């Protein structure tokens, strides 16, 4: 328990640091979105209009401390400013609108990839020397292939050539969002290819990681003893070997869960999927600092939460950390 409280304190401190950096970085950079806009219009803007825009975007000339206090106050109320790309929509609304799509597709795909990859890794280590070893070269190959390449290949083969799957949007134009079977079907249909991309591209890491740790674990005395005890192979494999081999893999899983929120930018772009990755790209293209800032903040907090969950999982799964 003491351990968890200490970790919690550490994460709160880190979250504060992330929030502060998030506040400081845009302000340390020269110029602001209005300056950029004015520059783009070659300076043909009425000073009164500039002033109005500055107020609308919430840019003030108050001293840094005052700004920082205001920023923290706004943050506490979930106020992240207004997006410039989608003006006058608020950043929090933009994020709230795109985050569920990303969490749905990237999150579920990451989970599937983790569970399936881990199970396959365990089986491959257990049955090494059989035909399952044939998966190894394939996994090594997939390990080396970048996400966007898989995405492009899938779009080309199944989207454009065979036309089995749609290649853009999160649901068809002709369905009305709502809790209907038709809408759910459309969403699943559109999410299939991006999800398959992520599963294919990230599963190889899980397979190889789990298999390697598992092979080492199988040589441990407690696995031999479990076998000598006359337990069923299934029990030896899962309750003794895999149960221990999974421990080093938890951290990497937590990290990848944290980055789920950041979206799979390239995958989302290739599939024109309206997730947070696409929003981030749009924000970068339009120099939309409030939006980028908001997204980065959400990502950093998600990574911290995921890390805390990993610590929690560790305490539950490994009694040696419970001091």
């Amino acid at each position, binding site marked *: 328990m003491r351990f968890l409280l200490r970790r919690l304190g550490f994460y709160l401190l880190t979250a504060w640091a992330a929030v502060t950096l998030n506040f400081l970085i845009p302000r340390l950079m020269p110029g602001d979105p209005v300056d950029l806009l004015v520059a783009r219009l070659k300076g043909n803007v009425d000073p009164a209009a500039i002033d109005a825009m500055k107020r609308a975007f919430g840019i003030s000339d108050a001293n840094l401390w005052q700004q920082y206090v205001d920023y923290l106050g706004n943050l506490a109320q979930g106020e992240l400013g207004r997006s410039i790309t989608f003006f006058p929509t608020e950043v929090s609304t933009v994020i709230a609108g795109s985050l569920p799509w990303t969490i749905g597709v990237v999150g579920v795909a990451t989970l599937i990839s983790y569970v399936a990859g881990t199970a396959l890794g365990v089986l491959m280590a257990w049955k090494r020397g059989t035909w399952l070893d044939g998966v190894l070269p394939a996994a090594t190959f997939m390990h080396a292939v970048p996400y966007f390449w898989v995405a492009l290949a899938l779009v080309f083969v199944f989207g454009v050539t065979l036309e089995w799957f749609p290649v853009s949007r999160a649901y068809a134009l002709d369905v009305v969002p709502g809790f209907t079977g038709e809408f759910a079907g459309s969403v699943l249909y559109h999410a299939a290819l991006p999800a398959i991309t992520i599963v294919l591209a990230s599963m190889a890491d899980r397979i190889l990681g789990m298999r390697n740790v598992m092979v080492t674990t199988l040589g441990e005395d407690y696995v031999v003893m479990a*076998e*000598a*005890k*006359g337990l069923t192979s299934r029990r030896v494999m899962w309750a003794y070997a895999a149960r221990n081999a999974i421990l080093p893999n938890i951290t990497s899983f937590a990290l990848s869960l944290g980055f789920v929120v950041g979206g799979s930018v390239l995958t989302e772009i290739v599939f024109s999927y309206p997730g947070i990755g696409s929003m981030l790209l749009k924000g970068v293209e339009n120099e939309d600092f409030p939006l980028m800032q908001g997204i980065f903040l959400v990502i950093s907090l998600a990574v911290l939460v995921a890390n805390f969950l990993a610590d929690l999982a560790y305490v539950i799964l490994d*009694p*040696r950390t419970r001091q």
Partner: protein
Amino acid sequence: MNVLEVRGLGVDYQSATGAVHAVADVSLDLRRGELLGLAGESGSGKTTLANAVARLLRPPAAITSGSVRYRRRDGTEADVLALGPKQLRAFRWKELAVVFQSAMNSLNPVATIGAQIDDVLRIHAPGMSRKARAERAAELLRRVGINADRRRGYPHELSGGMRQRAAIAIALALNPEIIIMDEPTTALDVVVQRDILHEIGDLREEYGFAVVFITHDLSLLMEISDRIAVMYAGRVVEVGTARALRTAPRHPYTEGLLRSFPRLRGPREELLGIPGTPPDLRSPPSGCAFHPRCRYAFDGCSDQRPELRPVPGGEVACLLNEGTGADTVREAS
């Protein structure tokens, strides 16, 4: 009566440079309820032999020849090497249990001691209720001198000696006929070692199981064993009662081992030790594998491999004195 009969057992390790005969043509009897010591240097094949008998060998190790017969109390027999997967699971732990070299590594670090006793009971005694199993676990731990609430503890919370006791408690769970103990006390300090050996003696008296006690510490075996088998380069070179080996070792290797440590009592004698190093099993010496290190070696030793031959008090594989080994009567100590 013998509870286990090993005949002509051979185990090879397949390696890139050919097969390594880690255990070659070993024949050994284990009598019901006795403590058989298995001694030899590191790499002499003691652990491989034990693992072969328990069917725990993993590739690249494989049994190439021989048989292992197990005889139950009711007189029925089983060919251990021919057991199918299901029979093998039933044979394991119920008839033959193992205490591994280091209890530090043989206990599952993420499961409680109680759970590790419980899963044996659950598999082998499916009729037992949860409560009965918990009581049995507590009783076993108490029996080996561990407080019963330690069953909720994890291995890392126990000291080295306690872990070894816990491993023994797990081995006792089903009252097996045979317990193979592979260097169970090697990693422990002498005081704890003595306690545990004492405990093993008491338990053996109470439950009547036979023990194969593997160690490189021959002086320890002299004290606790009924009979001792000495292995060299994968073969048994001498078997005999502890008393026969102590007073009149027939094999020069046994003599060398015995005279590698000073005696506490009795006349002072020169410490001999054994010159040279254990043989490389990839290319073992011809004839008797011990001849390059033997102080009694003669011409025939490098040509002819000695077979185990009966001698008073045991058996020996040595060509000296027409196959009865060296004449090395030591004064009783």
